[in-house]
């Protein structure tokens, strides 16, 4: 079994009087695909946000490898998200004004990659995801499935160790959703990136190696798919 790449130990998160995470323990290994499911308000999105460093935990600790990240400053966590993690959001959440290749190149450019190299790498990723002919298109000019594949290309362009996907198929029809998940898992496997997917979609969850069900801020069920 591979080493844990990301782990949460006794993670607690509160919003005022409401406890969203009540001491969650979770371990993600390199190349592993984990689906987090559960009813609305169960804490699955909050868990993803805390693991990704978007939200600081109020208790417990999150480790990236052996490095604790909870106490890092927002700037340090932002740097971590930029370099170690990739994100795929519902509806893509790409920058509407940028072309596909510019959107995909953005994480590389933010990391200091020169323009030509960044754009070249982005084009490669677009070709890899079957979007070679859409490099100059804007997010508003492509279909929902193509949009999500663009988002996957953007999430993977800088070769992150973990990809967080928040309802990546939520806005897609079943078939397009399946195609999108296939694309995500395929390229993740090729780069050995771990994938953490928050989803309501059982067919998506079935594609994960492990399914974690959240209830009332706690992990209720851990199951191998």
């Amino acid at each position, binding site marked *: 079994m591979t080493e844990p790449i990301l782990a949460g130990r006794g993670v607690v998160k509160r919003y005022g009087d409401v406890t969203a995470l009540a001491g969650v323990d979770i371990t993600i290994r390199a190349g592993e695909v984990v689906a987090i499911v559960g009813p609305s308000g169960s804490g699955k999105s909050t868990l993803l946000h805390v693991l990704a460093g978007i939200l600081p935990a109020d208790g417990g600790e999150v480790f990236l490898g052996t490095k604790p990240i909870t106490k890092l400053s927002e700037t340090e966590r932002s740097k971590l*998200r930029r370099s170690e993690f990739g994100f795929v959001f519902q509806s893509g959440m790409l920058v509407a004004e940028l072309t596909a290749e510019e959107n995909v190149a953005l994480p590389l450019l*933010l990391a200091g990659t020169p323009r030509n190299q960044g754009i070249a790498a982005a084009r490669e990723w677009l070709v890899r995801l079957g979007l070679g002919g859409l490099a100059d298109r804007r997010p508003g000019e492509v279909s929902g499935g193509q949009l999500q594949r663009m988002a996957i290309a953007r999430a993977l362009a800088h070769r992150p160790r973990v990809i967080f996907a928040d309802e990546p198929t939520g806005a897609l029809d079943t078939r397009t959703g399946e195609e999108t998940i296939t694309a995500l898992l395929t390229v993740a496997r090729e780069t050995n990136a771990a994938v953490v997917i928050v989803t309501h979609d059982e067919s998506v969850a079935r594609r994960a190696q492990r399914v974690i069900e959240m209830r009332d801020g706690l992990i209720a069920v851990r199951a191998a798919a």
Partner: protein
Amino acid sequence: MNPVQLAIRVLRGDSRSRMSALFTAAGVAVGAALVLWLAAVPGALQSRADREGWRQADFAADKADASVVVAQTRDNVGAQEIQRFDVARLKPNVPLAAGIPKLPGPGEVLLSPALAELAASLPADQLADRFKGRVVGQFGPEALKFPEELVAMVGHDPAELGENGAPRTGLAAARSGYINKLLVVLSQIGLVVLIAPCLVLVASAARLTAARRERRLAALRLAGATPQQVVSMTATETAIASVVGVVLGVGLTFPLRYLTARIPWDGGTWYPSDWTPSALMLTLVLVVAPALVVGAAVLGLRRAVSRPLGAAQQQTRRQPNAARLLWLVGAAVVFVVGLSQARSGGDSQMFVVLFGLAAVAVSLVFVGPLVTSLLGRMFVSRWQSPSTLLAGRRLRDDPKAAFRASAGVVLAVFAGSLALAMFPSVESQIGYSNGRFRDGVYVAQGAGLSEEQVNGLRSDLSQRGINAPVVAIAEGSIGTSVRESTTAMMMTCTDASKVLGARFDSCRPGPAIYVPQAQAVDATRLKFRAYSVPDMPEDGLPLPAAVSVREYQPTGGFHGILVDPSLYPGISSADTVAVVTSPQNQDVVHTMLVRNLPGVSLYSNERYDARADTLSGDLRRATLIGLSIATVLGGVSAAVASAGSVVDRRRTFGALIAAGTPVRVLTKALRREAMLPALVATVGAGLAGVLVGSGLVTLIQGHLALNPWILTPVVLGVVVALIAAVACGPVLRKITARDYSDE
């Protein structure tokens, strides 16, 4: 649920829509208050002019028709001007304007409240003694230009006024007071160029968070709402905000009147009632402002109505095309045609000029997105950093939205450049003293001053121990004919060297004329005509044969010919008396002059310059106020539009921040996005302002005088745009990584 109910529900339930409505209401309130304030300017000037209408009316063509003789002069105490009316009743019933309680008889005086108070507070020989007689009443506000105006009406016997008064049928108010044409033109120009940024502010407020609204409405359209329902919903949402705003704006106008009334103009402040907007203007603003806002919001919905899918998916917007330049060309043509017509056709053509001016201002807003798009294209092809890429793409992709933040600044820069281009020319038309008389010399000019009056003055001064030289001067002309003549003054060269702006090195007693150095004259052909001698031949009296011609050195503004009195022993009356004063005796000499020579107009370089300084100060103040308003409007519009554009892209920014994009990269992108078009557009607007200003100065017979200050509006515009861009920072910092999942 009908669209109106839906709109109200949205406003109740959605805090951001509510905030947007509040911003819209605030923008409309500020815009409406400013429009009403600006529109009140001509009315305020007219109210002042109407109250002093009695001073300029009822002149009688024939003395037989006259009921009163009035000598109107300007006096002063310190830097304050006194309007003085020496009056003599000719008939029992003299029509009087409201605010004049009675016509003072001989030995009676009417004072304005401020003058009465001032006279009581100063030693009598510095002020009160100027008004010979008993104070029998005070002017009411209806007869005063402004509350603290210093006005005196001194009653005389008709014989006492002599030739110094004008026969009038009465002192009743004119139907409409006269306003200086220059002021009218300047206020109209100010009105047009400042209303444009007001409208931009209102439009910016109306379009605040437009993208968010567009997405919501597009979703409704996709869900089956009809275009009419979508339009009704938007109209209701913006109508609620704009009606609240316009009512607030109209309400603001009333306290604003008291503030505005404190701004000095032409030597004094105002009555707050001067600034009350007319009922017509109030009605217009109450109706038109909400209509404009609702219209702007509904027009902005075209995409959500016609292509809801495109709006919902935020598809690329239609790019502005080069045809927009035609607007600018068309506006420029209208303006130039208007100018040429106004120059030849008079005031009635001014409307075309003002229309052209407004059209140029509006066309700048039309051309702005085109320039923004071109700029975006340039940056998209040359970007090296993510922030430049983000900014460039935004400018290229949605130039209309990107330019919205700069529109107010552009118009402010246009207004500022126009004002500063005109300012030197307008200011140069203010007359300063020409140095004809020396500094410190008080000059009383009137028609035929008797020797008795002059001796009375000398005696009064002597009684007070004042040893000030009193020089009686007969002014006139000298030349070969009436047409070919120059100014002449009859006095001795010894007296002239005391009072005139010239050096008489060749001064010797005896009959002679003194001409400016190096000026050749043929004394045998010259004839002198004294203005104070009524029965003198039209061409004047020839100089005695073999008159001595001597030269003097002009050192000030006197370039005429000095005639020694011994050349014309028969001319004894003078029309001008000059008194050499010292700072210590100046006020007393002034009082004695006014007291002894009723109806004469008093001049000194200092008084004249003080009056010019007042006018210049008014002009500077008006320009400064106009520029400040334009700057604030531009800045607020830019801040509102920039902040709105961040709120509109809240989810995208949230996602970028979640993915690790440093906020400083986004801040930098936003600053570039706001600054780049502002930088280019303000330079263009500055240039347009200077060009339009150079055209407008021709209406007042001026010419363009460029100086480095002309760059101020452009620099100010860029600074304001930068501040507005920086204002995005706090809004952006409120966006968190979790906002991507919002809505």
